[in-house]
């Protein structure tokens, strides 16, 4: 579907733009929501992203639109808007790679502690709901959170991410790996908390 979209946008922007919105709004909203953590902010940023995309397309000549890689291009716009918003509203995010990280990730543990059944790992996996993971994700530093979200929530390839973020693929792979490892450790220590609660 992405193959046909740029040429449709190039020939009739107003006619084809609705399709761009319908094809991409869910993924852009997901990126914004998982990077920013707040649904209202995410909605505003997604709409702003699509409006900016429209204005940019209206100013591009048809050849430029035809050669556009729409997925990473839109990702660039939404990520930049998320960064600007993050800068405006300095969130009190505790960094997972900070020394005191172990003490600062109680959300997942607290939610998990409500369910006393099953083996710790199986139940941890089951109980690590989307909300828990979103909460853990929010504690990642933004420099890691953005590549992790683009790779594993949005499903961009490393080549597309390199295009979108302007960082080398090798750097992005390392950042995603580091981010995943931090998330895994955080989830583990949340389960650990859970086990301590159960045995107490």
């Amino acid at each position, binding site marked *: 579907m992405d193959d046909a979209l740029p040429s449709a946008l190039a020939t009739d922007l107003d006619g084809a733009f609705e399709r761009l919105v319908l094809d991409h709004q869910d993924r852009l909203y997901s990126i914004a929501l998982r990077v920013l953590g707040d649904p209202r902010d995410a909605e505003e940023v997604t709409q702003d992203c699509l*409006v900016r995309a429209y204005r940019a397309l209206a100013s591009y000549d048809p050849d430029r639109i035809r050669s556009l890689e729409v997925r990473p291009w839109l990702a660039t716009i939404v990520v930049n808007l998320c960064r600007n918003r993050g800068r405006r509203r300095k969130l009190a995010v505790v960094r997972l790679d900070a020394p005191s990280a172990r003490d600062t990730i109680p959300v997942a543990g607290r939610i998990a502690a409500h369910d006393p059944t099953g083996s*710790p790992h199986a139940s941890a996996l089951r109980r690590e709901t989307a909300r828990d993971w979103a909460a853990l994700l929010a504690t990642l530093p933004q420099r890691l959170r953005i590549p992790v979200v683009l790779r594993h929530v949005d499903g961009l390839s490393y080549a597309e991410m390199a295009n979108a973020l302007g960082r080398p693929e090798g750097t992005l792979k390392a950042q995603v790996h580091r981010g995943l490892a931090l998330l895994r450790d955080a989830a583990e220590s949340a389960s650990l908390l859970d086990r301590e609660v159960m045995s107490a």
Partner: protein
Amino acid sequence: MTPRTPLGLADVETALAGLAVAAPPTLAGATLASVGLADEYATVPTPVGAVYVAWNGLGISTVGRADDDATFERRFARSIGRPVRRAAALPDSLARAVARRLEGDRRARLPLDLRGRTEFERAVWLKALEIPRGEVRPYGWIAAEIGRPNAVRAVGTALAHNPVPLVVPCHRVVRSDGLIGNYSLGGPTVKRVMLAAEGLDPDELESLARAGIRYLASDTTRVYCLPSCHNARRITARHRVAFRSGRASEAAGYRACRDCRPDSAARAA
């Protein structure tokens, strides 16, 4: 305590893939509206009853009367062709600007979406915006003021196609013979109601017109005006002089009022 298998990175990847969600249902509509590819509408109270107003991110696109939402939507689809959906009310800033315009505040900044209209039509509508509340100008005045003194009929046609009546006050434009004339937003009666609501007496205006009087002047200031001009209305009966033509006024040594510019009306064909 049960021994546990540590989480693998693949488990984390699976969990993250589950974090993709659907966008809120209103997002697409709001986005298309804000770039002007779709519109929203609501009703606004006016002296002639509730009136439908449609808008998008570029400004107000349509003002019209309709018996119900379905009728308005059908007309909108036929005339504009974009998707349109009901909103509870106008956005605050637009609502305030519309209210101020209806109260006669011509400086209220009100964005209009007049895409797809000709330069001539826009010129006519923008000129109509200059007519103060409670005053009227003939079609020929607009034609002369926009530099097309021979295009009086085309001015009438453009005003009949005004997509945003009330907001662009085409009800303040009358026939060149001074009679009130027709109105796009519901015929001559509605036009009279609108003008009366603005403090003008349509009957008085038409009785002057029927008597052939086009201009009123003051023998103290030696200035002649269109009859509804605020300056003409200040002239006391004792000092009021009536003229049938601009030429007659000038010949009698009167000069044109700088506010209502009656010579523009006189200049038109």
